[in-house]
């Protein structure tokens, strides 16, 4: 054999590693950006980072292609063609900012509500909300209303936190993990890492999802549930556990409102808690039979018996709960058909939950003291953990379904105990500890408080004197009383209709509302381009900021081009959507590891510049000049409360402050030195039982999460919901419109319920027999992946996956296309057979489809020609019911967009179909055509 070649086994990897935070999705992993000759050569995961511990997903590793994307905008753009055409001219930043200031200044002086400022998937909501508050418009929110507000709100109202950014499974200890619904694009690396840990230990994973892909593919047991019935399935599990007595009574007594006495007397207090003179809820003390304050010392709260007062017996919450869920209506046999899950399988899953929870309990020899002052020698937990996200949430019964899931977790005593579900600071945080929503606007003045919050009763709704919604999206109105994240998906249609009022300027950031982020996409594009009798646009002005040539860009009058995530400062803040772990406090930054090579600016710095031009309070000095040089300056020096700022680490003049401390001018440098993040472990005695753990509460105060300890009990029974029901029953001064009374009485039930989704209830199953869903692929995120030369080769089009049953019934053959029809619209797609699928469900990938001309893709790209959005089939309103009203296609509690309620019928498309319908006209591209081929290598 000839001499073996000797390749270079130690090539130089980089000149320097710059550690920042990924933004290829919302996971916020730490990345090592390997630089060669000042250029980005390679990206991998930061091993020291708390979120990803070195691993990185496909998106993160493809970040270099996002950074180099040909779809990057190059300069500010002013529209020269008609809206939607994509015809622009490039202008200077000075012209762009002057124009924006000229448009906004008179609005602030006369009618600040005429600015509607909504942001998409950014991670600077505490900043953009602060800006909007200073401007004085009530019309601000981010994208939660069309994403997962059902999950967030149900979690906060039930137990002070939900999944993902609120909490996580105890991956190291859990022995049984139940994963509900679509969850593969959120928190994705931590979940993958966690699943890997479970697999290593042989823990059982149960996946509840109509589609067996991704995580469900590796689930030990797959439950191919019918969409929209998760709540019914969960309550059947609750039924089984109650029937068998497999619940943690001690936990319920100590840590929940299960013993609280519910007022049974007729009248305006009916269904609220009995309270003492100090307003403290009462419980029955088993030792005396008397009603006493819930936190009185040395009592034995009862769960079984009530107290009789003036001939009326007031029962504890727990009795209301058991009376409901022990009903045969929730028996596995009663729900099996509807859920598409055989009853024996429901019983087996309930039995497995009970077995693991009560026969494999975990005890950690760690003493701790609860808020009552009682010392416990150990921490005992029930190692059953659960996780859910948008799949459960994006239904018109999603709020109550998420409540039901938390009820299940709490009944077995698995929340904040070892092996169960654990909160991440600053959670747990009950609704009372959050602000109320505000919409008080006065010309020339800031708003009277934060926009979003958690109403505790009808008095906190945002309604004017005539009981009309104060917000353009009608958030916090009777149509969606607990819309804690706003309702971005209603903004364009309401603004177009002038309902509840007309606006002047629609200002959007990073929200592709002319495409995959809106229901009813085709009509939304028409609303954005519609003109009045004078030929003026019905929505007079649209300002948009994005880094890329997205579909929404084409509909803007003024485009403010953002940088890529490697060219900017950001803070992933405790004030916002933090990256904490269950065992640690953490936040992080992005910083410009390279400078932009285009005339673009980071949006947050632009917003500060605009704020200074408008003279907004907090953004200018006394002499009227700009207070902050840029966003980095704001991150270091802004204080939300004295000593509390966007970043919690390295505070104070010496950089030793943790959570609290004066601004530190070297703070960002310290973060960069530390790998782009800051991390502090929670003390051992404070690691579990956080809502009730005195050590945790004191630590949280020391770190600035609260200003005083906030212990609380979990709300199995949610009294705020009951207050809305009472209003619907006619009590109180603030009354809902009559047409909403029945719905509020049903949906605002203080105990979790299940009802069919509005679409299921109103749809003839013979006409629309199938459910239709989307999933976002793990290797793609929203729209951003399609411009990515590497990722689009993994997912470049949207086949429609149909079950073997549908495949046979419709006589499909390989290569066929299908027409999918809903009551609202019609699309065509190529079909693919998939048997690991609920037989009555079809699905495709979300957000792969693109409008021709967008994202610097070729007009014949498969993303345009062989892909479509289910959005075309979904309307923001339900079909007319004949009552003269149009009902929102949303959850009636939170207003969350009910994307996954969709029902369709399927037919074989005519032979020869090769291009998807609908085909929208191409938009002109504001960026040059890319080169044909790519072979990127940085020669250092």
């Amino acid at each position, binding site marked *: 054999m000839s001499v073996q070649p000797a390749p270079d*086994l130690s090539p130089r990897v980089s000149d320097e590693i710059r550690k920042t935070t990924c933004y290829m999705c919302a996971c916020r992993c730490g990345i090592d950006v390997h630089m060669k000759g000042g250029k980005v050569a390679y990206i991998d995961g930061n091993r020291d980072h708390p979120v990803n511990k070195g691993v990185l997903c496909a998106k993160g590793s493809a970040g270099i292609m996002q950074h180099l994307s040909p779809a990057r905008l190059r300069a500010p753009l002013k529209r020269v063609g008609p809206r939607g055409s994509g015809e622009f001219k490039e202008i200077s930043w000075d012209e762009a900012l002057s124009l924006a200031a000229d448009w906004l200044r008179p609005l602030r002086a006369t009618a600040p509500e005429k600015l509607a400022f909504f942001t998409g998937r950014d991670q600077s909501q505490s900043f953009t909300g602060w800006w909007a508050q200073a401007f004085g418009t009530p019309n601000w929110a981010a994208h939660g209303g069309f994403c997962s507000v059902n999950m967030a709100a149900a979690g906060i109202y039930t137990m002070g936190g939900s999944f993902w950014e609120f909490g996580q499974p105890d991956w190291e200890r859990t022995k049984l993990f139940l994963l509900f619904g679509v969850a593969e694009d959120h928190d994705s690396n931590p979940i993958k890492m966690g699943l890997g840990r479970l*697999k*290593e230990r042989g823990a059982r994973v149960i996946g509840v999802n109509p589609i067996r892909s991704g995580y469900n593919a*590796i689930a030990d047991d797959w439950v191919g549930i019918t969409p929209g019935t998760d709540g019914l399935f969960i309550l059947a599990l609750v039924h089984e556990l109650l029937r068998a007595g497999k619940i943690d009574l001690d936990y319920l007594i100590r840590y929940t409102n299960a013993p609280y006495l519910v007022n049974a007397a007729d009248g305006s207090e009916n269904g609220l808690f009995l309270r003492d003179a100090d307003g403290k809820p009462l419980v029955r003390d088993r030792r005396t039979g008397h009603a006493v304050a819930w936190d009185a010392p040395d009592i034995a709260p009862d769960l079984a018996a009530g107290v009789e007062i003036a001939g009326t017996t007031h029962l504890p919450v727990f009795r209301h709960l058991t009376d409901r869920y022990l009903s045969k209506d929730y028996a596995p046999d009663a729900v099996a058909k509807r859920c598409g899950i055989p009853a024996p399988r429901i019983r087996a899953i309930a039995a497995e939950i009970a077995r693991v929870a009560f026969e494999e309990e975990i005890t950690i020899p760690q003493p701790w003291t609860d808020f009552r002052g009682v010392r416990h020698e150990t921490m005992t937990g029930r190692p059953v953990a659960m996780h859910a996200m948008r799949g459960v949430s994006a239904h018109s019964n999603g709020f109550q379904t998420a409540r039901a899931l938390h009820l299940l977790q709490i009944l077995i005593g698995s929340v904040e105990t070892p092996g169960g579900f654990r909160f991440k600071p600053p959670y747990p945080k009950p609704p009372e500890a959050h602000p109320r929503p505000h919409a008080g606007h006065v010309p020339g003045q800031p708003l009277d408080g934060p926009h979003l919050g958690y109403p505790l009763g009808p008095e906190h709704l945002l309604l004017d004197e005539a009981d009309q919604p104060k917000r353009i999206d009608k958030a916090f109105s009777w149509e969606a009383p607990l819309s804690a994240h706003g309702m971005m998906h209603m903004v364009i249609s309401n603004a177009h209709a002038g309902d509840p009022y007309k606006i002047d300027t629609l200002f959007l950031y990073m929200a592709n509302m002319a495409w995959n982020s809106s229901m009813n996409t085709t009509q939304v594009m028409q609303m954005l381009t519609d003109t009045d009798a004078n030929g003026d646009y019905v929505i007079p002005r649209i300002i948009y900021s994005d880094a890329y040539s997205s579909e929404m860009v084409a509909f803007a009058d003024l485009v403010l081009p953002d940088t890529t995530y490697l060219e900017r400062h950001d803070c992933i803040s405790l004030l916002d959507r933090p990256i904490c772990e269950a065992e640690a406090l953490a936040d992080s930054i992005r910083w410009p590891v390279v400078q932009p090579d285009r005339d673009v600016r980071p949006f947050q710095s632009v917003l500060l510049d605009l704020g200074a031009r408008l003279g907004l309070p907090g953004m200018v000095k006394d002499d009227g000049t700009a207070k902050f040089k840029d966003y980095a300056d704001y991150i270091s020096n802004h204080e939300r409360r004295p000593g509390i700022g966007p970043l919690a680490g390295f505070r104070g003049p010496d950089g030793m402050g943790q959570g609290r401390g004066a601004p530190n001018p070297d703070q960002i440098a310290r973060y960069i030195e530390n790998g782009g993040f800051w991390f502090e472990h929670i003390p051992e005695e404070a690691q579990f039982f956080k809502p009730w753990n005195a050590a945790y509460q004191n630590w949280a105060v020391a770190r600035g999460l609260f200003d005083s300890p906030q212990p609380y009990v979990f709300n199995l029974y949610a009294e705020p919901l009951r207050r809305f029901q009472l209003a619907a029953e006619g009590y109180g001064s603030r009354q809902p419109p009559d047409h909403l009374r029945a719905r509020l009485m049903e949906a605002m039930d203080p105990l979790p319920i299940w009802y069919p989704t509005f679409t299921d209830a109103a749809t003839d199953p013979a006409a629309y027999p199938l459910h239709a869903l989307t999933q976002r692929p793990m290797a793609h995120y929203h729209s951003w992946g399609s411009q990515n030369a590497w990722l689009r080769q993994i997912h470049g089009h949207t086949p429609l996956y149909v079950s073997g049953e549908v495949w046979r019934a419709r006589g499909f053959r390989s290569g066929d296309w299908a027409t999918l029809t809903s009551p609202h619209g019609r699309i065509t797609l190529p079909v693919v057979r998939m048997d*690991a699928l609920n037989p009555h469900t079809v699905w495709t990938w979300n957000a792969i489809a693109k409008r021709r001309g967008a994202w610097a893709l070729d007009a014949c790209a498969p993303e345009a020609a062989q892909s479509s959005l289910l959005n075309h089939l979904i309307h923001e309103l339900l079909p007319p019911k004949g009552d003269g009203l149009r009902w929102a296609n949303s959850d009636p509690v939170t207003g969350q967009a009910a994307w996954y309620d969709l029902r369709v019928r399927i037919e074989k498309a005519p032979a020869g179909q090769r291009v998807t319908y609908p085909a929208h006209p191409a938009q002109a591209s504001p960026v040059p055509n890319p080169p044909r*081929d790519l072979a990127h290598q940085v020669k250092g």
Partner: protein
Amino acid sequence: MTSLPTHTERKLGLVIDLDTCVGCHACVISCKGWNTENYGAPLADMDAWGETPEGTFLNRVHTFEVTRDTAPPMVVHFPKSCLHCDDAPCVTVCPTGASYKRVEDGIVLVNESACIGCGLCAWACPYGAREMDGAEKVMKKCTLCVDRIYNENLPERDREPACVRTCPAGARHFGDFADPDSHVSRLVAARGGIDLMPEQGTRPVNKYLPPRGRDTLETPALASLCDPLPDTPGTPVQGFLGWLDRALERI
């Protein structure tokens, strides 16, 4: 034609855990990133933003459905790259000696400067693990990150293939199969690791761990503490409430 070494000192390779792989493609893109920037020519993408993008990848993930008579269908994600076979037909078929198997560790490589792009090796590989680069017209394949695993410019802990370092689920493992006590050897022994298509006689070094049983949950119905109704003398309330009352007394 090119000859194979009769023996290699070590047998470096991968164990891929099909029980744990969620099909996220992290390994695919991490590999693409490292190998575009390192060993040999960059991995090209032809028609990168066009109608038919076609790039070079050294590792791809395929997804299969497995239908079963009495249980729900399974889905298996199957990452595939060069298996660094002991009897590598891609090497013996190479007319120029460009393809070779390293004596010291068994890694199969292509010496690009000797590759004439004839493509015989890709035809010979029964696994479809080699790809002709569209721009350079040289054969590309998994190098097991030979320029990472010995790279003195990388910290010790990073001297593993990019796909292994990045795999979020921990489904990929790297090591020496010649050492029976190595992590990979022990995994294969413990989990019944298998050769891919052993009938091909290629003696692949990489091993796959098969998916564990799925949908096996068969627990007897939940034994109830309160139903059927316990008829305990002296207990006035029966059924659930009776159980509740007695349970509360014990707390």
